């Protein structure tokens, strides 16, 4: 963190600036890789940048920060993502 000679409201980029926002989740998105067609709809719509796009355009979910909004499940054309209540996933 770069220090300045004065004290004022300067803020520094940090992952998890509001902590582990994955704890906000009530429903958890579960991705079925077999149904995924790598269309990247979930990646492009995810508000929190917690769908991680890999080199081959497959995706995985960053559960540490995913807030469980369900947008990804809603936009997925093959229903590869389902929302499951936290603690009830298999």
């Amino acid at each position: 963190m770069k220090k300045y000679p004065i004290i004022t409201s300067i803020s520094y980029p940090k992952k998890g600036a509001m902590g582990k926002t994955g704890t906000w989740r009530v429903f958890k998105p579960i991705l079925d890789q077999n149904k995924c067609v790598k269309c990247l709809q979930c990646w492009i719509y995810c508000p929190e940048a917690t769908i991680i796009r890999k080199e081959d355009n497959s995706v995985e979910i960053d559960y540490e920060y995913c807030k469980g909004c369900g947008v990804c499940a809603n936009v997925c054309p093959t229903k590869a993502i389902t929302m499951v209540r936290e603690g009830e996933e298999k």
Partner: protein
Amino acid sequence: MAIKDLPLEEHYIPGSAACPGCPASMALRMVFKAIGKKMIMVVPACCTSVIESLHPYTSFDIPLLNIAFEAAAAASSGVAAALETMGRDDITVVAWAGDGGTYDIGLQALSGAFERGTNFIYICYNNQIYSNTGIQRSGATPYAAWTTTTVGGKTEFRKEMGEIVQAHHIPYVAQTSIGYPEDVYRKVKKAKEIKGPKYIEILAPCPPGWRFDMSKTAEMGKLAVETGAWALYEVENDKITFNGKSKLILEGKMKRKPVEDWLKLQGRFRHLFVPERDEKRLKEIEDHIDMLWRRYRSWVGIEK
């Protein structure tokens, strides 16, 4: 522009203070992807002042100046002028404001910056309310919508900010919707390459403000366009082009869906359907949209 072609680059860092399903966050990711790290963002009071997260941390990996509610465009003029004197034409200045800071309190500064030719992109993410302060009516709130200051539904129609901006004859004006992130990306990318003032407005359906489920943000953004309640267009040097489904609607190649399809999914319009249908106001809304589309057609010469 296929989704696969969008860059992997992210400057929105996970773990922010945004509500789940936030349209502003979605749009910010697209803006960051389109412009990259060589940008300075100016943000007036709006939801984004919260989304950034709490001091001493930030969820945005780009330099950002928070400024007073009505001051985004003027502060951007200052940033742009300073960059000009430093010879830094590789840096894009972006003012990022909500509809309150654009349509209402920031309108004067916005008009001033456009008139004096500030080299920047002004982006309004329009969630049609003062959502950060708790869902109050703004100049962008549509007719009949419930807000905490229009309890029985707003009694006036929203103003057409796009038209107000067009009257400044700046090089680029566009309307888009977060229902179509590729369209957002493409328009921001295009604006980045144009010198002078640019205006982009992104319809940003707000789950808590509009009273719909947080998983439906994208859907609401699409439905607004499919019902004609919102139009996708871009104006380059005074020449207007409608895009995507709006183009199909304009040219009569697609019939716009009844606006009810969009309204009934939103709790803010619930009083139009229960305890009984408010036929009068529903018709007024349809008629208003028809009027707008007649107007849009006249712009492109389809209708006199």
